[in-house]
């Protein structure tokens, strides 16, 4: 884990792209995130795993302020996330997010889905936005679907469009919330392949997933969460071969058994 306790070290080195410290969040009286501290440097790939309800989604949704936290500090690319709308929108420009349920806009074509935010948020001229969108659709291997509507695509294709759509904003960070768990087995690979390519291109990524093959292939760090806490955080090799806590061992035995 990155050394956070030594203040000199933290000041010296280039600050992390995401700095989360002392994060606490409640849903009503339910304490969903407890004292989360996490630092992500530029280009780092982090896989977050843990049992259902452990707060993984909530954690990454705090990073682009889809969820509001009550205590602690989240700094993304030097901007602190607080109630200030300007800051929040500035952070969202730099942070792409891919959802489990794709969330493409069904009334817009694939190309329009991709160009919407660049045109309206970044004020990119339409032609440039379309060029970039076509390049990225090519990267996710579906340029021929550009003029179709999301409802006409398979799940795997939709998720790849969703990835391209996020990339069109040229984000510095990409968040993935179980991007493959709504997909049929044969489509999981096509999405994971795209994500591996993206990781190799140097993107900073936070990925909630139970795809352990993906984790060991691309992750710099695997974070294991349970009951709103980070239980363990380690390199994939260490994490899979020498899990420290009992809960991690139990989780791994369950997830790797099938």
């Amino acid at each position, binding site marked *: 884990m990155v050394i956070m306790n030594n203040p000199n070290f933290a000041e010296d080195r280039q600050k992390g792209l995401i700095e989360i410290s002392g994060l606490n969040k409640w849903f009503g009286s339910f304490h969903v995130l407890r004292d989360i501290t996490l630092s992500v440097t530029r280009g780092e790939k982090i896989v977050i795993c843990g049992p259902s309800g452990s707060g993984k989604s909530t954690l990454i949704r705090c990073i682009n302020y889809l969820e509001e936290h009550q205590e602690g500090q989240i700094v993304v690319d030097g901007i602190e996330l607080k109630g200030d709308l300007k800051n929040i929108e500035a952070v969202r420009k730099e942070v792409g997010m891919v*959802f489990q349920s794709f969330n493409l806009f069904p009334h817009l074509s694939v190309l329009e889905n991709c160009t919407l935010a660049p045109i309206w948020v970044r004020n990119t001229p339409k032609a440039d936005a379309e060029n970039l969108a076509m390049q990225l659709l090519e990267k996710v291997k579906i340029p021929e679907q550009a003029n179709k509507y999301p409802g006409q695509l398979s799940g795997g294709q939709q998720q790849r469009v969703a990835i391209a759509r996020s990339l069109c904003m040229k984000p510095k960070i990409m968040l993935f919330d179980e991007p493959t768990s709504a997909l049929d087995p044969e489509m999981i690979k096509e999405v994971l392949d795209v994500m591996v390519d993206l990781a190799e291109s140097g993107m900073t990524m936070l990925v909630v997933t139970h795809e352990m093959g993906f984790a060991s292939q691309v992750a710099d760090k695997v974070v294991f969460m349970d009951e709103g806490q980070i239980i363990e955080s380690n390199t994939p090799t260490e994490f899979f071969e020498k899990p420290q806590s009992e809960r991690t061992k139990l989780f791994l035995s369950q997830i790797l058994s099938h």
Partner: protein
Amino acid sequence: MNSTFQNNTKKKRIAPRAPPIGSTGAIGWLRQNLFSNIFNSLLTLICIYGLILIIPAGIDWVFLSSQFTGDNRFACQNTGACWAWIDQRTGQFLFGFYPEQERWRPFLAFLLLIPALAPWLFDRVPAQKYLRIFSVVYPVIATILLVGGFGLPNVASDKFGGFMLNLIVGLSGIVLSLPVGVLLALGRRSRLPLVKWVCIGFIEIVRGVPLITLLFVSNILLPIFLPPDATLDSVVRVIIMVTAFASAYMAEVIRGGLQAIPSGQYEAAKAMGLNYFQSMRLVILPQALRISIPGIVNTFIGLFKDTTLVIVIGLFDILGIANAMVANPDWLGLSTETYVFVASFFFVICFSMSRYSMWLERRLGTKGSTGWSS
């Protein structure tokens, strides 16, 4: 099992055959839709019998045994309808007491309505962009034509009447109530308590009171919001009240549409950095309005028919003119003819709206939007 399967794959591919006779075409359609079982066949026969009773008799009454000429009702000695008054009275039914030599003005305003509406109702209208600009200035042009100014003699609004009045109030109400309804619906879902409560208050109060009451009290109610010595024209007053009333309904229809949009759509829009207004305008409202089309058009149709209530504040719309005519000694007792005549105007407009909305739904349905993913 395995061997049959292999056999099949080795066999020559099966060429497509025509479906069995009687499952497609006219006979197939009849069989499937009208005579699929005994109960349906019985219903079909009863309906056919009903139509045989109604349609010929109706045609006979309206056209065949009717009379179209004469100076008063005593000229009509036939068994069918007496349409002799149409000749004399159509002008009044259409324009009320609008001066006869000026009636070309509302007529022209009506004609200009077509190019003003077309670019919004249909895609690929020639010169769409220019027509849209035209439709923005159309209300000004229409007002000048109707009221006067720029060399046209003034016509007081208490001379407005007939179907022209229904159209003016109805169209203004339709065009205004949609945006007001959208704002109210968004306001009702706002997180700002003041905005939220004002919108809820407006919707619930206006919706909870009959329109006729609102029209009665409009001359007491509206001046509260005006500077002390301003007066409000009665037609404008009606337009405001009808719009307010329809907006309250519209807001609830649109709120229903907004609630049907999955939260993932809001989240995706937010996560991309779109601000509130952008995500509403570009992502949420296009989808919410699309699924609300039936309810929206329903409200429009209701609004249009409600324009006949202007009678309670002393304006003579087409129904008011009809009432006056039914009471006229020359034409006494012709209420069926008169009201059928009036009803046909409303039917044409309302039925067109209904057909348009169905066409629009079908067209938008083919343009993507086969629902949300998972």
